[in-house]
């Protein structure tokens, strides 16, 4: 048995792309300038291979000899220590043992296809650096080259000569004497066991076992902790809350149920026979009607905590996880597009200002984008919509929202596991990865989280999931199973626990296929290893199911049986390791009781700088270049947004395919022209003023983005994703409840149902400075995702200006609402009124815009959001490569008269700019009807944007190239 190392370098004359990228990052992050570096990728191959065979693998499998050269030698051989660039410091970076290494797995199979014998493969990356001081080298490795959460670093020669993974596990039943513990003991058990349960919850469990007259096993405690975790049960928001604000006190038995769910119930009731919701807040994703044959499903999840520790892996498994939601909805939906929204600290944050344990935001952003890219693209699911928000409060807690839309035949939209069915694990194997993800996501991050919770961080293997997807759709259509769900947070424990809730289940943990030896029964039970689904397969269908899987090389294993006992029984090689009643597991949790207080901050007036001191051209350029507004083309192009062949409106639109579209439109059924519009809305800055108006504005924004491309406003379904700080604080929870009340009010008023949602609480980061605890809490971050329907995609419109001479209309009222605006942000101003939504006008506006788009009266339509009118017109102009002449005199205003700055930059809701051909103006005005609107200008032949005040003064006069460059340059990475 020999351990070969195969190193692959660029051939002479070929670019070293990896080294170049590292040097650029090192410079951008302030770690080292002009870094001299060479990079290689390598493979460690262990097996019965002679030199000739190792050379053959290097030549025919691992390297591309047109552009690469190899070094092949047994580990330890001096050849491997020969520097290609004369630089002496050699750094190896390898995945830690047990971390998913998909390339190594594929390589192992590929070697077998050569008829050669290898038993283990590991990938590595090699870097050759100059004679750097140890301190610089250590900063480079820890901050850029490697991530300690998943990777190991070896400086100098590799100190081993063989690879080993896992050793045999000896069964040892662990009982925990929970009955005898006092409160301190219970608290300690919860924390040290990473159960993250409250004392009251621990006491409830203690009492349960006291009544049973026995101690708990570790598997039992873990099962309860997973099921009762915030992640799985949403106990805070679905709990009892006493809420107080300026309108008095309200008591909720179940806050979510009485606000957001209740709104949907009322809408469905009001719609009666026209109800187009199919399943809401029940399954893994919400389901609504699409056409005569299909329903569509939609879910958005967050993966914040893992992404903070390992951005690539966190985002990678975030998108991988949310894809499994539609796949595990009903009898399995086909994923048809992704949406991804991220919140980061500014990427130019100085490296020396980072608290310990925090990764640089630039690295976080690059890692997150790469993680989503590599998983989404490999799955063959177009990523069509997204957004980025920047605020320094996301430094310790970046937010990663990943969403997926799926298509499902109408008759496959529900499921029912049957007693007697096999419990089948499908897809990836179980390993030690991802242990305690569900409970970990309930914990506050600290500078020590990295070392404490590394096991909760994972890398995905998209191809395993793609193979599972292919199998599921085939097996679904052949009727080979009776129910399916995803293995997400909590692993088998949650999946089997949920599926068997109404029946009972017996699980044989020793049957689960493992990645390597050494896992205890409890680790098997709670592992969150990726790419696994759990199915309920009737015994008479098993042979067909198993053979289908075998034909495509997907592993399917019977790990238990649904039995009508009402109990969850776990066995390991015949030994009982857990026996819990489903009732205690699912209904035994004591209700969480919380207080919530909302006190609106006093409205401070916003004092505008003296008119003479402000150059509005410069202000406009600054807003266009502010990170929330700036072009996201660098991100968008890295995502395949057209795979599956249904792309109608792409995320980038306009004469050069680079303008910011409002919403993406896809045709999920290629033979049909019916489409879906996907968009989102989010305004973290408004939350600093009033979370009610923040939430209302986010809903309005998501809706108007959809409506702007042609979606029917009466057929938009929305999702809520609350990411908040520490909700044990009544003020923090109060700001969330207030947002939920807005969700209820707006949904009911718009007849726009929430169909699913998710929350991620306790997004705070604490660290110490001079012994003092410092805490950064994220701003209230409510993402609203919208899925609209388009009857005929050939009627869709985009936001780029189309033809000189056409009229430009502004629809909607512009009010004194500069609070939280991007104008305030770039001018460093405080105070002002936060934008509100006039629900009645908004609803009429959406309907009017739709009525105008449908008959073809509108050539371009753009919603007004960040940066207000000036930014919207500028974007329309440079996207279309056409100028615009605008006069502010006619802009429809609210009751209070607005100044020029307000008219230009106010972020008042429910507004659109429409380009209308001259001959369509009467039709357009007829369609818009009584909704406030005015003709404010025209598309011009000149390459300039001109905006004139009512007194005739030119406030904005700028050429399109300058505007576009300001918008494109900040994130042109």
């Amino acid at each position, binding site marked *: 048995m020999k351990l070969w190392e195969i190193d692959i370098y660029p051939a002479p004359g070929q670019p070293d792309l990896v080294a170049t990228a590292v040097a650029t990052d090192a410079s951008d992050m302030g770690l080292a300038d002009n870094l001299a570096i060479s990079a290689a990728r390598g493979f460690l191959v262990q097996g019965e291979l002679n030199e000739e065979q190792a050379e053959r693998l290097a030549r025919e499998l691992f390297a591309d000899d047109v*552009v690469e050269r190899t070094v092949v030698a047994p580990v330890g051989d001096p050849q491997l220590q020969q520097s290609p660039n004369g630089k002496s410091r050699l750094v190896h970076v390898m995945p830690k043992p047990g971390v998913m290494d998909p390339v190594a797995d*594929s390589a192992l199979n*590929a070697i077998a296809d050569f008829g050669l014998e290898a038993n283990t493969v590991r990938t590595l990356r090699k870097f050759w650096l100059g004679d750097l001081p140890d301190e610089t080298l250590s900063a480079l490795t820890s901050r850029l080259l490697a991530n300690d959460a998943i990777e190991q670093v070896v400086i100098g020669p590799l100190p081993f000569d063989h690879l080993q993974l896992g050793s045999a596990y000896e069964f040892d039943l662990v009982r925990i004497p929970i009955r005898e513990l006092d409160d301190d003991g219970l608290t300690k058990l919860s924390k040290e066991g990473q159960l993250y349960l409250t004392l009251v919850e621990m006491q409830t469990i203690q009492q349960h076992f006291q009544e049973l007259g026995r101690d708990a096993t570790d598997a039992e405690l873990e099962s309860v902790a997973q099921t009762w975790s915030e992640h799985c049960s949403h106990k805070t928001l679905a709990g009892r809350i006493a809420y107080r604000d300026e309108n008095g006190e309200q008591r909720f038995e179940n806050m979510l149920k009485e606000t957001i769910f209740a709104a949907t119930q009322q809408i469905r009731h009001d719609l009666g026979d026209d109800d187009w919701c199919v399943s809401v807040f029940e399954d893994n994703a919400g389901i609504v009607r699409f056409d005569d044959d299909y329903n569509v499903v939609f879910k958005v999840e967050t993966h914040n905590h893992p992404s903070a520790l390992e951005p690539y892996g966190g985002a990678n498994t975030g998108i991988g996880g949310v894809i499994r939601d539609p796949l595990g909805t009903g009898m399995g939906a086909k994923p048809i597009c992704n949406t991804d929204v991220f919140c980061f600290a500014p990427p130019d944050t100085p490296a020396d200002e980072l608290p310990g344990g925090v990764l640089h935001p630039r690295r976080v952003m690059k890692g997150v984008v790469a993680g989503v890219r590599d998983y989404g693209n490999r799955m063959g699911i177009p990523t069509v919509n997204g957004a980025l928000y920047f605020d320094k409060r996301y430094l310790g807690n970046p937010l990663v929202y990943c969403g997926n839309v799926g298509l499902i035949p109408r008759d496959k939209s529900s499921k029912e596991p049957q007693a007697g069915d096999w419990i089948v694990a499908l897809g990836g194997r179980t390993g030690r990865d991802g242990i305690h993800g569900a409970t970990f996501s309930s914990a506050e991050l600290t500078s020590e989280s990295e070392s404490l919770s590394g096991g909760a961080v994972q890398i995905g*293997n998209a191809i395993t999931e793609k193979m599972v997807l292919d199998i599921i759709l085939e097996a679904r259509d052949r009727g080979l199973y009776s129910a399916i769900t995803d293995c997400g947070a909590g692993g088998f424990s949650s999946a089997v626990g949920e599926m068997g809730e109404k029946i009972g289940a017996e699980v044989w943990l020793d049957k689960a296929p493992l990645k390597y030896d050494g896992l205890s029964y409890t680790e098997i039970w709670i592992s969150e290893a990726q790419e696994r689904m759990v199915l309920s397969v009737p015994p008479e269908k098993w042979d067909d199911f198993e053979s289908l899987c075998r034909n495509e090389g997907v592993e399917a294993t019977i790990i238990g049986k649904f039995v009508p006992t009402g109990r969850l029984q776990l066995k390991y090689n015949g030994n009982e390791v857990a026996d819990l009643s489903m009732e205690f597991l699912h209904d035994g949790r004591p209700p969480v009781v919380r207080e919530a207080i909302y006190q609106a901050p006093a409205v401070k007036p916003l004092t505008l700088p003296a008119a003479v001191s402000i150059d509005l051209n410069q202000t406009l350029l600054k807003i266009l270049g502010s990170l929330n507004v700036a072009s996201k083309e660098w991100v968008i192009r890295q995502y*395949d*947004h057209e*795979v599956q062949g249904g*792309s109608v409106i792409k995320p980038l*639109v306009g004469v050069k395919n680079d303008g910011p579209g409002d919403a993406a439109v896809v045709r999920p059924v290629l*033979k049909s022209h019916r489409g879906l519009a996907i968009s989102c809305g989010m305004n973290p800055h408004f939350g600093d003023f009033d979370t009610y108006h923040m939430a209302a504005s986010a809903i309005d924004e998501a809706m108007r983005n959809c409506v702007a491309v042609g979606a029917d406003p009466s057929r938009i379904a929305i999702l809520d994703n609350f990411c908040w700080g520490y909700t044990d604080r009544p003020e923090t929870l109060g700001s969330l409840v207030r947002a939920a009340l807005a969700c209820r009010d707006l949904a009911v008023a718009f007849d726009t149902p929430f169909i699913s949602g998710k929350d991620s609480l306790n997004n705070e980061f604490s660290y110490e400075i001079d012994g003092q605890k410092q805490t950064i809490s994220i701003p209230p971050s409510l993402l609203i995702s919208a899925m609209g329907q388009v009857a005929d995609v050939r009627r869709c419109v985009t936001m780029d200006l189309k033809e000189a001479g056409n009229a430009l209309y502004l629809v909607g009222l512009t009010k004194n609402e500069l609070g939280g605006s991007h104008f305030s942000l770039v001018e460093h101003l405080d105070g002002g009124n936060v934008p509100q939504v006039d629900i009645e006008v908004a609803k009429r506006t959406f309907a009017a815009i739709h009525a105008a788009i449908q008959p073809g009266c509108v050539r371009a339509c753009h919603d007004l959001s960040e940066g207000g009118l000036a930014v919207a017109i500028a974007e329309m102009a440079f996207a279309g490569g056409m100028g615009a002449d605008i006069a502010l005199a006619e802009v429809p205003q609210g009751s209070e008269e607005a100044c020029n700055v307000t008219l230009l930059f106010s972020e008042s809701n429910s507004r659109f700019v429409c380009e209308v051909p001259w001959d369509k103006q009467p039709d357009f005005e007829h369609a818009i009807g009584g909704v406030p609107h005015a003709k404010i200008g025209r598309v011009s032949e000149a390459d300039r944007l001109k905006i004139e005040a009512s007194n005739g003064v030119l406030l904005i006069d700028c050429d399109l190239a300058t505007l576009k460059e300001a918008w494109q340059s900040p994130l042109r990475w």
Partner: protein
Amino acid sequence: MPTPRVLILRAPGTNCDHETAHAFELAGGAPELVHINQLLEDPSLPSGYQILCLPGGFSYGDDIAAGRILGNQIRHHLQQTLADFKEAGKLVLGICNGFQILMNSGILLPDAESGTSATLTWNDSGKFEDRWVNLATGSENCVFLQGIETMYLPVAHAEGKFVTRDQTMLDTLNGAGQLALRYAPLNGSTDGVPYPDNPNGSELHVAGVCDPTGRVLGLMPHPERHVDPTHHPRWTREGLKEQADGLKMFQNAVGFFAAD
């Protein structure tokens, strides 16, 4: 002549199979999706088909390198099957990952003495990019490209830079008319094809390569993503065209047999 049957080969990680099948259907062909394992079990399977298409995706995750593992599988087990298929005057089309697989398998270009003749390696930009490109055809005899002078199609890849082993190889392929599809300037300019018009830095701006018979074609752009007029990124500006650019390639393939 009955409707030509199209074998669309899928493997772990293939992901453009459905829309490629749809494109062949629109063109009048009869596509079927066949898993590589079925083919490995029964290598005679392709004899019942007229067209073999390797669609886009990430076969085996593109682990190690794009198309490498599946390319090797074909080399090890299906060399004869594909040689027979070509010999019988049938058509082979590789799109994106399919092109990478054809290159890795030696099906498209025979190996040089010292190894593969050419490769598709990492884009100069070092990353995956999805963007639309102008294409110009440059082959007299490529069946798929008959009657097509230019096309506007999207590319979506990380490893699409065409590099030959040496200048002689490049000259030979060029001279033989095998460099059938080139990236062309978007603005119609004549001074070169700078990035991103040539999205990956390919030698001679090569986007697609055919074999000497013109019946085997591999290309990086995705014709199946431009078979409906609403696929065009600027249809809302320029109006819906009567026929989308990519469809003609599929019609040529299907028509090749109808014309016989």
